[in-house]
């Protein structure tokens, strides 16, 4: 479930409020949104994918709240990792990802 909106990174754009399909967040004027309904989070990771400043962390645990530590997540490269892997971060694109897939497929064949 969603466990973190980094207060230092968030630019209050409220994109997560808009895109979250289960309406987990509430906007706060002039501030970062709040995680208002955490148990409604379906753990789809899409807020993370859409966050333009990698301020969000959705833990893999879908049913139970887990403690996370922002510095620890940054140190492990986990803040924004999903967006990078999708090719949605700045300077990247899904096309680059697909090209890498083509290259590797030439070497090892299609996985299935």
């Amino acid at each position, binding site marked *: 479930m969603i466990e973190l909106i980094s207060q230092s990174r968030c630019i209050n754009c409220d994109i997560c409020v*808009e*895109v*979250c399909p289960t309406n987990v967040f509430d906007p706060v004027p002039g501030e970062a949104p709040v995680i208002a309904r955490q148990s409604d989070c*379906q753990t789809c990771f899409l807020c993370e994918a859409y966050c333009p400043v990698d301020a969000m962390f959705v833990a893999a645990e879908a049913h139970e709240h887990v403690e996370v530590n922002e510095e620890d997540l940054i140190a492990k490269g*986990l803040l924004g990792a*999903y967006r990078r892997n*999708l090719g*949605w971060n700045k300077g990247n694109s899904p096309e680059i*990802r*697909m090209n890498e897939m083509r290259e590797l497929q030439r070497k090892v064949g299609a996985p299935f």
Partner: protein
Amino acid sequence: MNKLNEPGLEINADVLVIGGGPAASWAALAAAERGAKVVIADKGYLGASGAFAASTSGAKVIPPIKELRDPVKFERYALGGHLAQHSWWDRLLDVTFEKAPKIYEWGGYETPPYNTNGRPAYRGLQGCETMRIMRKQVKKAGVQILDHSPALELLVDDEGAVSGARGFQRQENRPWTVKAAAVVMASGGCAWLSKALGCNTNTGDGLLMAVEAGGELSSMEFSAHYVPAPKHSSVTKSAYYRFASFYDESGKVLDGLTKNGHRSTSAIAKELLKGKVYVTLNQNGADNPDMQKLLRLQQPNFMNAFDKIGVDPFTEKWEITLLLEGTVRGVGGIRIANKDCGTTVPGLFAAGDAATRELNCGGFTGGAGPNMTWAIGSGNIAGWAAADHARSLGQKATERNVRGVGRTGLVSSTETDATYDANAVVKGVQEEIFPLDKNIFRTEKGLLDSLAKLNQLWSEVQKNPVQGTAQELQRSREAVGLVAAARWAYFAGLERKETRGMHKRLDYPQLDPNQRHYLAVGGLDKLWTRPVPVPEAVVPQPAKEEVAVHA
């Protein structure tokens, strides 16, 4: 019905599409393509809602060449109990061949990365990227998008024809009403809030609304679709279990959990009923580092979960569970009554997971290909037909007297002040529909026991819904949809006294050739079923042996 009677947004349109996934987006585009004024209302956000946006699935993009299309039609034909129709496959494949490549064109992408028989396979783009492109295109087509606007009931005219819908804009805190000549229900299937990846927006709302408007469902007995996921996670991505070694708690290898290279859900379920099951992806070439790199790139959402829990899925053992995907990657849904994806109710069309998928999947899952082909095909067919229907009604469409037909979970009873606890009701349904021994391994006694409990829950939700906030309004209604969908699934399951497709009856373990028919199911307080003949004779198998696929 206090909250819905407050002043709100009111719109007239030719076509209202309910939903926000691929089928809904395609339906909106198809209706707009034929000149209709289209509104699309989604519970969540068009682009992030539904199973596909959070996951991904490739469509079957195959030219009209018999040798290339036959394998697709026969791949799961027997597995689905010969309930699919080849004539439907032909139409769906035609539409998909024409439409699916446009996603790449609109997104500015080159040829897809994989080839099947020397032809592009169109499965490189992830669901979220595809849906981002679809949203842009829907906007470009002039379709009005209402995000965070769950539909709560259908509107019908004096003749009983569907004439629009009403719902609530949960971020604007106001009701919405769209009067329309035709409605396409593409609100997704029902996974009973299991948190299977992207499935919690899929609570069977469309099924309930359709039945309240006089519609009926079909193939609800084929709704026990489960997918493995790393324990505690939501990641029901099944493709990579073809690389899996399975282990029990002592580390002993569990054989027989895959069939012909694909996972067997019932074999996994049997092991999970005995104890813990662990997986490492180290078979069929997955020990090659380049293959691992490729697998990481191909399914970022699958790998995401492992990165976060700090497990290397290729070398370490991780515990799995089975999560219910229900009708989302199962089959049941609103019965399609004609070639236009029309339902038994005039003015109501159905597409995607909200509709039955029996027409191209029979009684088996359409995961990894057939489902997306159905979404694109049925979305377009329903969208076109809805636009044509609107044109045939002309001006009089929006001049009709209309009334809402939503009842249980929406309208307060005048006879009592008592309310029901929606969360407790949801939990009660889940206790009947989640357990593997109740839903996968079915018996008459088990189904009757569960139905008795579900009927109690149905009585419970006849009390007043709590509607103080937008969330409460939505959850109260969703709870009713979940109870209703579970009752239809088990009632149909009771009626089908054989084992066919994903419907397994321990007390009737064989397929019965005399039951090669669809089961229509419906009713609210009192349920009913009716056999519906399959209009196509069984198509003989080509000489080549069928490959068993369980995606």
